[in-house]
């Protein structure tokens, strides 16, 4: 693989991590959604680049799914949902921006240390891809625990899945089964989430999960 190929892949995967960190400190739902769309867009570019470099045409399909479904369809749908529910106000966070950013940096450092040491035998591209992918996954998890709003938790979950796609495409020659399944699972997950959001709305007039916490079984 030429130096240039490697650099571009590196740039794209690194940008994904950066955008994950951007997501951490968005405090409005609309801007969070836009940043997520950018996340998916970069993912699509990254996957397409891998397809080109690895000469694996089936990866273009994964890239197309990322582009159409994750970067366009879901953000648009969620956008409309936010308008309908009237919840475009600020997002309630469990921890402050500063703490979340520090934790995020810690997680990125952790995944670099862990993955680069473990994968030293793999080729450099896969090695860095996996390290970046783990960062994206962990940042997605962090976002899910630092947000209370159901929509932003869902966005955290979807960027986590983006990290998984990055890992799956970085693993050269991994059978298509998995890529399709990843895309498929997001589709299903989205439907499920959509149903839930509307049901939650029906019942509670809010999508703030704190409202749900009141109904904990033990406090009846």
């Amino acid at each position, binding site marked *: 693989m030429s130096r240039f190929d490697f650099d571009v892949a590196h740039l794209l995967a690194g940008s994904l991590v950066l955008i994950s960190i951007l997501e951490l400190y968005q405090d409005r739902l609309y801007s969070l959604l836009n940043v997520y769309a950018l996340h998916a867009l970069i993912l699509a570019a990254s996957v397409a680049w891998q397809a080109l470099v690895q000469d694996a045409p089936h990866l273009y399909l994964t890239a197309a799914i990322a582009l159409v479904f994750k970067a366009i369809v879901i953000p648009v749908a969620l956008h409309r949902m936010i308008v309908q529910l009237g919840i475009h106000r600020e997002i309630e966070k469990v921890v402050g921006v500063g703490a979340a950013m520090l934790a995020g940096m810690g997680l990125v450092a952790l995944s670099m240390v862990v993955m680069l040491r473990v994968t030293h035998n793999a080729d450099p591209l896969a090695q860095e891809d996996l390290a970046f992918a783990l960062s994206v996954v962990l940042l997605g998890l962090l976002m899910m625990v630092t947000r209370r709003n159901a929509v932003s938790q869902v966005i955290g979950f979807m960027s986590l*899945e983006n990290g998984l796609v990055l*890992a799956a495409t970085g693993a050269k020659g991994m059978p298509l089964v998995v890529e399709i399944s990843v895309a498929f699972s997001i589709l299903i997950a989205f439907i499920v989430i959509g149903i839930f959001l509307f049901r939650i709305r029906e019942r509670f007039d809010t999508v703030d999960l704190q409202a749900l916490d009141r109904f904990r079984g*033990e406090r009846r």
Partner: protein
Amino acid sequence: MTFDALTGVLLIPALAAALLAVLPGYRMTARLNIVATTATLICAASLFFRRPPNGPYLLVDDLNATFIVLTTFVGFTTSVFSASYIGHELETGRLTPPFVRFYHAMYQVLMFAMNLALIANNIGLMWVAIELATLTTVLMVGIYRTHEALEAAWKYFILGSVGIALALFGTILVYMAARPVVGEGLDAMVWTVLVKRAGDFDPALLDLAFVFLLLGYGTKVGLAPLHAWLPDAHAEGPTPISAVLSGLLLNVALYALLRFKMLLAVNAGALAPGPLMVTLGLISLVFAAFMLYRRRDIKRMFAYSSIEHMGIITFAFGMGGPIANFAGLLHMTMHSLTKSAIFFAVGHITQVKGTQRIADMGGLTETHPTLGWGLILGVVAIAGLPPLGIFMSEFLVVSSTFARAPMLAIILVFGLLVALGGLFLQINGVAFGEPRGPSAKAQASYVPMFAHLTLVLAAGIYLPPALVAWFQNVAGLLG
């Protein structure tokens, strides 16, 4: 494709799900549900006699044949219980006909997903199947549309998804470890190929993969501290689903973990997965045992009991070796049978009493002797008292541990005793004393409950040599 038993256990639930999704009428669909699970059970049982060859996607060996037969059997008895349970829910208006249709279709999809996860030879396919099973149960847990049910379903969905995501990352890492040895493409995800070549994999990658898989599938097994979804999901969903969750789905996730444990066992340089599993198992056991005391919701209490028993099973498999593995397998089988029997009893009890609060029920042995004594028998079994089956498996776990690691055995026995105390303290008020709550006659189907309990009792008194030999053989496979 020719029709064989493997296609049977997949095709029958899939077709039944499609049919049940469109057919109206509760009586007919409930019967169809039973017919489908019966047919699946027959197909599964035939795996003992005749097996199709293993392909790149599907696999049968002695290990998963055991799991499949257990799964389809409990799936069958639960469908019988579910018919009377759901009928009652329809009468009281907690469920409407469209929801019942949805429920039956989802029940079959769940059976399909669990069977697929068990017979998958491809680790990617196995992951997909477990994900499907998770999503199905999420939908079922939320089916009542109450505050609590929605919260439970949401929590289950979020935690389950995170677990499933971590498991996928682990699966990708396994592929990465396999690729330099096996080569690119499909083969590097086929379990039978992996297990042959795992000796040459990069141990560090394999270790890391197992940590992710343990966290991911461990969430689905309900191991503490990853268990937070489990009590809510058990308490708020329909009771047949609690029975299937506890009795089957937790096992399926554990099965996935065992497959990867077998991979690591082949590799000399990789870490021993045993201590990790032992630690998580003991934490779950002791934690859940203490949690039994303060529960106010009866289904929630038995959900904690499931965490406790999954802890014991994980502990036994973590210890490894022929006796501990044998005990683990036996315990898993006994726990599935007993816990689903308990949920059958609890399902009817909560319907009669109209509540799940332990404080609002009492004197069941007076008002509903069959249900009350059935519940007591179940609790005696699950607490591990002789002469029932769980006593025997727990005894084997404890005695084999005493021989190898006495300190661990002390913690284990301590946890078991705490759990025993908690269960009896709680159940005392429910079964005996002043009758509380409504005492209308129960429209119950007692057959599934007593069938399970009879099996557990029989296994406690006499284990047929053929069964012992079979379990020993499977325990040998697990290493």
